[in-house]
């Protein structure tokens, strides 16, 4: 198959709602008092308010509500697992329970949110501006993922001078190098980043803050405060040495390659191959769906528990099945099989059964003796979890971290154990959500403002 046809499958996300669809959907909204969807949104994006505004044809106001509460409101509209967040609490859905008059579908909040943000872009509406507060202060933000962008935007709106240091060549963090482009494409993300830059935020790419105490040094280089949002870019693996095996990828590596100059190489490497993805979460679903689009032979998802125990959302699981992915559930991979040149040729699997519940409350997979077998595969992608990169604590040696190298903060303020250094996003929570990273950035920004004001008063 032509390489361009394959590329085309990765380029764009599917189109969002039209104005007509959004209006019809907003008309279904019950305009609840004390809207439960608003309470459920981790970033206080206020869906109850922006849907009401849409209903009363105050479209610009609706865009303002979204973007002023959530600088990544567009990306969240696309990427939030809404069925577990705002839409889970929607009264239109609640009305079904035992109520025959109820209608069984929640308002499509995420889709409306995306529509409004795209509408704002289409008419060139700029809802955000820098307040004339007369404050002064310089803040360094490490990482241009959702938490960093959110913190930077919030501070810039208040009139602070913000510089983001980003290790990679383009900003966006996981949005750019993790999430597959057919779920959220580059153009869409760039527009969100344009909004951040328009507030005066400077983003320095190819500027990793690494090396001994590099993050703490920023405080000595004239920055009044530092926000750490480096995310989790290390990968858990089945074996220590899996990275050395040819044909063996971590999800982090594989997904990042879809976005950069190595994409062509990936396309030719995957062509006609049998791929196995290990894991059952959303990242694993991204990996299988991407593999299925790569002109591969067969794609397997290997998961050690049952279908219903998968952490991935129901829609994602169904989409993957529909895309032709074969789910191999109740199977635990135990080893890689390689040839003499350390090239992958297969996976050793053991069948499992469900035993007693574990600490997560889910029934534990138990290996069934004597059921191991070798499955021939050409490529394996391990999507069993991301972690902090190993040396990350060296960048901030005095900042308190936990056993998994996650930064310990005060949850009300995002403050770390070192005064002037704040943190948020995945580096604090472990693998979490975009919308939660946005909220962390906002909370830290407010605390940073307080911190700088207090510091100014002391001086």
């Amino acid at each position, binding site marked *: 198959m032509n390489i361009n046809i394959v590329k085309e499958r990765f380029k764009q996300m599917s189109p969002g709602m*039209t*104005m*007509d669809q959004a209006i019809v959907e907003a*008309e279904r909204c019950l*305009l609840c008092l004390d809207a439960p969807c608003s309470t459920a949104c981790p970033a206080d994006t206020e869906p109850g308010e922006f849907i*009401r*505004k849409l209903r*009363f*044809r*105050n*479209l*610009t*106001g609706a865009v*303002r509500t979204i973007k002023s509460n959530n600088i990544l409101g567009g990306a969240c509209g696309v990427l939030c697992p809404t069925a577990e967040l705002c839409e889970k609490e929607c009264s239109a859905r609640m009305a079904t329970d035992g109520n025959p008059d109820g209608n069984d579908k929640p308002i499509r909040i995420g889709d409306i949110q995306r529509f409004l943000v795209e509408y704002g872009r289409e008419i060139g*509406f700029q809802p955000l*501006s820098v307040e004339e507060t007369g404050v002064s202060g310089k803040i360094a933000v490490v990482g241009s993922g959702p938490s960093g962008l959110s913190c930077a935007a919030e501070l810039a709106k208040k009139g602070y001078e913000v510089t983001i240091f980003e290790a990679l060549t383009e900003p966006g963090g996981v949005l750019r190098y993790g999430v597959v482009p057919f779920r959220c494409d580059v153009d869409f993300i760039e527009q969100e980043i344009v909004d951040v830059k328009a507030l005066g935020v400077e983003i320095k790419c190819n500027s990793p803050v690494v090396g001994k105490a590099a993050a703490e040094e920023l405080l000595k280089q004239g920055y009044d405060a530092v926000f750490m949002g480096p995310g989790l870019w290390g990968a858990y693996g089945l074996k220590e040495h899996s990275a050395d095996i040819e044909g063996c990828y971590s999800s982090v590596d594989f997904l990042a390659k879809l976005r950069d100059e190595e994409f062509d190489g990936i396309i030719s490497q995957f062509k006609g191959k049998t791929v196995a993805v290990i894991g059952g979460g959303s990242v694993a679903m991204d990996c299988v769906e991407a593999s299925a689009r790569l002109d591969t032979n067969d794609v397997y998802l290997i998961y050690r528990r049952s279908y219903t125990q998968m952490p991935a959302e129901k829609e994602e699981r169904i989409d993957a099945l529909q895309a032709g992915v074969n789910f191999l559930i109740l199977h635990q991979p135990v080893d890689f099989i390689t040839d003499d040149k350390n090239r992958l040729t297969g996976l050793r699997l053991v069948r499992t059964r469900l035993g007693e519940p574990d600490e997560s409350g889910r029934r534990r997979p138990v290996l069934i003796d004597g059921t191991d077998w070798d499955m021939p595969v050409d490529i394996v992608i391990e999507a069993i979890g991301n972690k902090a990169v190993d040396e990350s604590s060296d960048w901030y040696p005095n900042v308190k971290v936990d056993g998994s190298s996650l930064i310990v903060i005060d949850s009300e303020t995002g403050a770390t154990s070192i005064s002037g250094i704040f943190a948020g996003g995945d580096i604090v929570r472990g693998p979490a959500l975009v919308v939660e990273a946005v909220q962390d950035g906002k909370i830290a920004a407010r605390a940073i403002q307080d911190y700088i004001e207090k510091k100014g008063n002391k001086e």
Partner: protein
Amino acid sequence: MAQKKPDLSIEFCGKTYKNPFLLSSSPVSNSAEMVERAFDAGWGGVVFKTLGSDRLRIDHPSPRMNSSNYGSRRLVSVQNVEQTTDRPLKDNLMELLYLNKHYPDSQTVHSIMGFADKEWEYLARMSEDHGADMLELNFSCPNMTIEGSGHDAGKSFYDLEHYTSIVKRAVSIPVMAKMTPNITDMTETAMAAKNGGADAISAINTVSGISGIDLDSFIPLPNVFGHGASSGTSGPGMKPIGLRFISDMAKDPDLNLPLSGMGGIETWIDALEYLLVGASTLQVTTGIMHYGYVIVQDMIEGLTDYMASKGIGKLSDLVGGTLPKLGKTDLFDLDRQGVVEYDLDRCIGCGQCVNVCTDAGGQALEWKSETRRPELTEDKCLSCMLCSFVCPISGLIKYKAMPEGWKRRETAVRDPSLEKELKYEPYVHDGSDGCLV
């Protein structure tokens, strides 16, 4: 450079309103506790629920309202049988004193209704003495159980002029007369109030109507213990009527009074339309009865953003903006014609356009069942636009002006062979028996 924020404030009868949005006189303005929350939500002023003198006891019929629905949409209009306030005047005056004290920047208009000369005079003085910024004379409630009051007075040129002049003589604050739409020409009734000294006109009060009938008992709704009555209808369905009356008055050079518009306002777009036909303050009841005071936030934000996008700095620049383009139908250039055009790439194939064109339009659309698409014969299109109204995809069907001189095909006669049976001869006009042209 940052653009200056558009200014929503407006002058009305010598007072400055921070925005044009007022609660109209009705249950939404029934108590100080309610109005206080409305002011906090952003409303620029209130016309308090119509005061009476306590001489005749007022009880509201029960139940008080009925809703007209359209499919699943509720409250397309509301019919009510409520009268003027059922609260004692003393209590109401205390409420108004409270609002005056705590909200000096929000305008408080007292609505009053008397049933005799002295009573109008008394109520007007009481109001002025308790800090009213302005009076609104209720000549328009269609629901009064006391004969000769409410819209009965509002249909009588004599009563309008007479009561207005009594009030004007009694007080020095501005006086606005509130008109009933249950007449044919509001410029005449408004002129009667002006002759009595009215400083402004507000309109419309509710339209007499029947919203529904109980099909088992045949009793009209709301069913007040076995009886129904045509009574006050309000809400979005009444907007065209309100816009029409306001524009009529705004265009009348003899009347020339400031206007307070209402009738079906819910969104900033409705509000803007009232401004454009000549209202400079706006009042709302049913929108609040449906959605609460919060809707003012969307009216303020929506109107502000609109003005910013058009580079309009002051609200008064919008007032009457439509009037130069609003004429009578005899001004239309009937030589110019047009048709519809279809963007079939966006068509979803529902066929509603073909249905309405065939049964109510020009039979200009043919249904292509293989492709599920309509096919237009341009010179049969009447440009009635029905197809565009039923099309679920906005903007798919648009109007297209045709070049000057373009003519549409005449509707074909079903059976031309019947011509031989015709007894037709052309009409020839002779004489001048009431001839218009």
